């Protein structure tokens, strides 16, 4: 097993598995977010459950944060190693002739998504932690919908979110199906996996973007 930890293939497995884990998380996230458009009451209930359930808070949330950290730290490690592996660069290099821009620039789409996560954590997670643990406010299962809609009142924040979702889409466009290849899955199901992954890469970020724009255009009027 020691060889597995140090090897280039192990790094591929780590990227693939942490990426797939984050893909599963996206499904959960977008499902709850869609509730904010369809049913504010259900959104409040679901958000309250996620915010106060001890298993979610003290088991799933740390695992998720670790998953994000592992994915981006390994991404940086791979990027540095890969740049070093070339040494002297080409004077003329037609990378676009044999591979897509998206596949060659995962570090760019990844960095944008990472920067977005910083803002997103500040917007929601830091606020939530402060509300619960610093200010020690009492539980209020009805506050989540209004707080979420208010977040999207500024135009600039909505634009940043939507642009980030476009980059998330590009990241998933290559990364989702790529993780199967890294785990050794390349068989008769691969064309189907690729189609599903690309559909996922469009539909999920589109849903996130729709939610952000919807709340920006439909503020709560008191």
């Amino acid at each position, binding site marked *: *097993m020691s*060889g*597995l930890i*140090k*090897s*280039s*293939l*192990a*790094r*591929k*497995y780590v990227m693939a598995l942490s990426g797939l884990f984050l893909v599963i998380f996206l499904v959960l996230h977008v499902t709850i977010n869609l509730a904010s458009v369809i049913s504010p009451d259900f959104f409040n209930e679901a958000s309250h459950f996620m915010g106060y359930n001890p298993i979610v808070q003290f088991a799933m949330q740390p695992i998720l944060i670790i998953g994000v950290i592992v994915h981006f730290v390994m991404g940086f490690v*791979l990027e540095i*190693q*890969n740049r*070093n*592996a*070339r*040494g*002297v*660069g*080409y*004077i*003329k*290099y*037609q*990378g676009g*002739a*044999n*591979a*897509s821009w998206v*596949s*060659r620039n*995962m570090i760019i789409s990844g960095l944008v998504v990472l920067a977005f996560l910083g803002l997103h954590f500040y917007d929601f997670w830091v606020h939530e932690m402060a509300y619960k643990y610093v200010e020690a406010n009492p539980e209020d299962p009805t506050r989540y919908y209004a707080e979420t809609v208010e977040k999207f009142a500024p135009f600039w924040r909505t634009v940043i979110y939507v642009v980030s979702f476009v980059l998330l889409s590009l990241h998933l466009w*290559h990364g989702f199906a*790529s993780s199967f*290849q*890294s*785990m*050794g*899955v*390349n068989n008769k199901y691969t064309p189907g996996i690729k189609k599903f992954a690309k559909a996922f890469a469009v539909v999920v970020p589109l849903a996130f973007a729709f939610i952000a724009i919807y709340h920006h255009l439909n503020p709560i009027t008191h």
Partner: protein
Amino acid sequence: MKIYLKIWRQKNANDKGGMVDYTLDGVESDMSFLEMLDVLNEELIAKGEEPVEFDHDCREGICGTCSLMINGRPHGPDSRITVCQLHMRSFDDGDTIVIEPWRAKAFPVIKDLIVDRTAFDRIQQAGGYISVNTSGRPVDANAIPIEKDAADASFNAATCIGCGACVAACKNASAMLFTSAKVSQFALLPQGQVEAADRVMNMVRQMDLEGFGNCTNTGACEVECPKGISLENIARMNREYLAASVKG
């Protein structure tokens, strides 16, 4: 045809090197790319200049020796061929052609356009073989029934000529297509099963030691491979390695 060439010149491994411009007149469209370089070298020799060093051997696309990055693509603009199979009809009169050596830390430049590809030899030596009883009465390999699909896939993997275009094309200078082809050609056959676990572990370890980059599944290697080695081989190597690691 009149061709403008920008060629990487480097005296030796320690020299910094740089691009040098040449103009070559009278290039014919039915010349191979290497013949065009031969003409250039004859001119340089006649002028008392040092000829451009480049690797070549069989000149029929099977030895994997020729290795030039031409206008930013390994083996030039055409697909599924090596440089020796590339002809000047693929270029137009007045074209500027940029010629560079393969670039990878694991493939250091020896001189001009020649790089040291012995890293591939060491990967092969680490496990790219099977142990066969060569005593007086060996078992005929053809006596062992092998499923047609497995035999074909193994043969396809075995067509890798080890030219290094995969490394040259890959943005990460990864050697996974080469290594996986060499793993796959044996992994698919019953004769390769005895050493299967050790083979993949040792070949991947050597590949990492040589300093090649990691695979990020861009697929550039598959596109540029003159023999069309498929990414399926990399997936197979990933499976083999995972299985071998778990078994310990």
